[in-house]
């Protein structure tokens, strides 16, 4: 009885939550440069720019002051919603708050540390005394770091069973996409990595949407409306007729898309 009354009176409850969040790690503070790169990305994968919330990671930037307002404006123009800033100096934190954004302390990721230590090692390698110790340390770090990306990749690989139908979009934002079934005309499959289709590909396939040029597209029967690897695309019209309806693989090689039989 009293419990019910309680829940009725409460307007909200705070809950801890872990949400997937895209971090936009800035390596340039120039809004124009950011704009240009965003425009390129937008063309490649419009689906990822649907008012997607992003956290601006500014750890890599040295600048004590940041044109945060302009950077945010550029993001919003491209349908990205900056919700917070991570890292940066105190003025950066103050301006984030002024703009109504949250602020997170910089994360000392393994990767950042590794890069730093490798940089130190190479510097120190010139001084003979520290040579061997530095080298072994660098090797350790590398061994540590290699399994990590692999784990990540397998975790973000997406398996889809069934027909991807006209008007449907199936994507694996970070990793590979595997479709066991057909991708029909009017359907779209996207992946940050490669796309594997164990069936006919009649729709659009966009691999390497974040610019990964080594991504590929593989299918059992090629009838694709559009093939794209890291924004380099070919339409059905551009595909060699002899390859149509055949098992095929698509890669980026010598500055263009190369479509070969899957033998």
């Amino acid at each position: 009885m009293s419990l019910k009354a309680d829940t009725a009176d409460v307007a909200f409850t705070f809950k801890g939550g872990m949400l997937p969040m895209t971090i936009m790690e800035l390596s340039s503070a120039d809004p124009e440069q950011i704009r240009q790169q965003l425009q390129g990305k937008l063309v490649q994968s419009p689906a990822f720019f649907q008012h997607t919330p992003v956290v601006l990671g500014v750890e890599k930037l040295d600048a004590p002051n940041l044109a945060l307002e302009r950077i945010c404006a550029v993001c919003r123009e491209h349908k990205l919603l900056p919700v917070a800033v991570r890292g940066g100096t105190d003025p950066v934190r103050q301006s984030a708050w002024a703009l109504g954004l949250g602020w997170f302390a910089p994360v000392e990721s393994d990767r950042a540390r590794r890069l730093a230590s490798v940089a130190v090692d190479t510097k120190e390698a010139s001084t003979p005394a520290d040579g061997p110790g530095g080298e072994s340390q660098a090797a350790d770090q590398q061994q540590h770091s290699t399994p990590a990306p692999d784990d990540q990749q397998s975790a973000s690989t997406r398996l889809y069973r069934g027909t991807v139908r006209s008007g449907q979009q199936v994507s694996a934002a970070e990793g590979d996409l595997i479709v066991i079934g057909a991708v029909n005309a009017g359907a779209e499959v996207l992946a940050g990595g490669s796309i594997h289709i164990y069936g006919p590909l009649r729709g659009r396939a966009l691999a390497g949407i974040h610019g990964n040029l080594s991504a590929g597209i593989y299918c059992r029967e090629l009838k694709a409306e559009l093939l794209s690897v890291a924004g380099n695309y070919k339409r059905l019209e551009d595909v060699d007729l002899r390859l149509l309806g055949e098992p095929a693989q698509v890669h980026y090689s010598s500055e263009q898309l190369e479509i070969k039989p899957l033998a």
Partner: protein
Amino acid sequence: MAKVIVVTSGKGGVGKTTSAASIATGLAMRGQKTVVIDFDVGLRNLDLIMGCERRVVYDLVNVIQGEAGLNQAMIRDKRVENLFILPASQTRDKDALTQEGVKDVLGKLRQEFDFIICDSPAGIERGAQLAMHFADEAVVVTNPEVSSVRDSDRILGLLASKTQRAEEGSEPVREHLLITRYNPDRVTSGDMLTLDDIREILAIELLGLIPESEAVLSASNQGVPVIHESASDAGLAYLDTVSRLLGEEVPLRFHQTSKKGFLTRMFGGGGRR
């Protein structure tokens, strides 16, 4: 257990209403208590094809808005026992339908009927989505034509994502393929997609194949569901379709070129009846 079956296609003019009328009639002829509902508010056609347009007083929108009771709005078919028609409104538009209202009406009908056939409007907008929302099964009507197949593919995508079953994550809507206006001669000559092409692209179970037939046009102009024309191959094909819907195994017919005699070829031999 009552079954709600939506007859849908995406594309217009492929034979949804013709098929809904014949399937509902066929089920009633087999002793199943059946109601067929016209969801095409604003462009009502089902009553014409069922031949009851002069008996429409109240319609689906009246029932949903509480202006009439279900029993007042439902029209009893004159030819077949156990068959009722719930017509659409001609004067309103599809915004007059609400999801709650549709749910309520279907809930009441479920208690009384064995089969509830929802004749969907064309397109993928609100009207079509409401018609399919509460369906247990779907009959996807497709012509042997590229654009029709693509639209059906789109509808199948919606059936898998926008229905109550999809939203609740319960057992998915059972999908059946009904190919209409199939002309084996034109398939052979390459004008039409083959049965196998369509089945390969849509990848769902085939419920029936209705040959292109003059009987369909004349029957709908007379207000008689073509399934009553048991001398026509379209009528027979709908009878087969209904049998399969009831779980019977019936071999496929009318999908191969008929062997015409010399004289028939010379003189055309009239329509396919």
